[in-house]
């Protein structure tokens, strides 16, 4: 089954080398007003110790409330809960909406939870989860940002890395996701090669203020990364709370 699953997923999405993968169906059944945690087999889902997980489908909602509904996503890590999407509308009763996985893809580790907040009760949700050993080289970076320059990721010794694009599930294509509690931020993700002071920002101008709305996704540099190379992000989040996340592959130096 493992080999078949590896083959299936790799063949479809180019996702490499899941180790001991397991596909799970996450559900919220007849959710209540407010926060609802994605569950597997009736229990709030977090990857077990030694495992990670990622969402590899859109999230489907069925609105059974009798009126229009709205929903947004949150991500819990430790004692902190982060809003990670803008608000989606489910227009009418008995309607379904597809909540794109592009918005909700922090890679989950043990202790992390995925939550959907409903503005009404009686909504169902389904999502596909793939869970795998944390020795697999798909990893996630998730960080709260401070005003100024933040280092999100540094390649460790003996490793090479590539940013992994959640939009089309391919390596060497950069996509970072972020959320802030104000309407717009200047945000510049960039790549810095070990030993260099040059901030290579391949998609967002250093001279133009980028607008970072709530739950935005944007491109970022995605070169081959060697030990000591870093992914950084600068922001002028002087008053806002802001966080950013992306997925990357980290593998032994070839």
């Amino acid at each position, binding site marked *: 089954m493992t080999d078949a699953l590896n083959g299936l997923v790799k063949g479809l999405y180019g996702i*490499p080398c899941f180790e001991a993968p397991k596909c799970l169906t996450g559900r919220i059944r007849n959710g209540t007003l407010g926060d609802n945690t994605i569950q597997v087999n009736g229990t709030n889902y977090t990857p077990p110790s030694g495992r990670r997980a990622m969402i590899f489908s859109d999230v489907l909602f069925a609105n059974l409330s009798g009126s229009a509904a709205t929903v947004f996503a949150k991500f819990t890590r430790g004692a902190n809960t982060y809003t990670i999407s803008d608000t989606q509308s489910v227009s009418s009763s008995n309607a379904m909406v597809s909540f794109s996985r592009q918005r909700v893809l922090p890679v989950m580790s043990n202790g992390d939870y995925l939550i959907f907040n409903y503005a009404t009760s009686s909504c169902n949700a389904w999502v596909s989860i793939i869970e795998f050993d944390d020795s697999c080289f798909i990893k996630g970076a998730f960080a709260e940002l401070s005003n100024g320059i933040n280092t999100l990721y540094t390649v460790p010794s003996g490793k090479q890395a590539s940013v992994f694009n959640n939009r089309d599930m391919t390596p060497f294509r950069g996509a970072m996701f972020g959320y802030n509690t104000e309407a717009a931020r200047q945000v510049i993700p960039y790549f810095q090669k070990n030993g260099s002071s040059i901030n290579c920002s391949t998609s967002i101008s250093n001279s133009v203020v980028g607008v970072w709305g709530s739950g935005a996704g944007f491109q970022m540099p995605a070169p081959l990364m060697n030990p000591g190379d870093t992914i950084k992000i600068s922001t002028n989040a002087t008053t806002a709370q802001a966080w950013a996340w992306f997925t990357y592959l980290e593998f032994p130096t070839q």
Partner: protein
Amino acid sequence: MADIINSIYNSGWNGFYNNAKFVDVTNLNLSAGDNDLYTVPTGKRALVPYVLSTYNNSGSTCTYQAKIKVGGTRYIISSAAGIGNNSGSTTNYRSLVLEAGESLCISSSNAGSCVLGWVIEFDDSSPMKSFKNFNVVNGNVTLYTCPSGKTAKMFNLVETAGASGSAAATINPTATGVNLTMYLVPSGQSVGVNYQNQQATGIFASADSVDAPISGVLAAGDFIAANNPNASNQLYVWGIVIEQ
């Protein structure tokens, strides 16, 4: 480690490369003019993926164009694109495989700017190889013939995943639009309408590029041919094959 790279870059289709490794070809201080980023060592080939990322910190608008050097001559493989100071962009083209002694290059109009790139280097005994022809002009030109004892399949990389079939890449380096027709011809046969794989496609002037579909598996002696009826304005055509 080839299995890891196969998995990372080829959706788990293993066995395309032997003894593969990633090679960083980043240059954070380009010279004005042509820059050779990487040359394939003896006994190796290198897969050049579809993109070079550029970051312009040269002080003024900078124009980039990707090239390869074959037999000492540089050939364009992308259109030219300019970006403003302190901005980043990408230079995109169709992937190809370089042979020993061939180089990946980029031209930069300004000194002091940056390019971020990488290649996959592997043994030249590997099934993955490519054909390249920089003089498709004045009638039929044979691009690739499947050798004795082998079969071959055109191969599309990640950047074309989801596209139907496989395709050769073309670029028009001249100032005149030309037409291109592709053929997959069985062994012992001649180029003709029965083996046409694609209707004549117009390729406009000045670095316009198109994909030329090639569908099917080649047996020994089968060959891929291209036709450009223009007598003097050549096309560049390349493609990747898996030959086993």
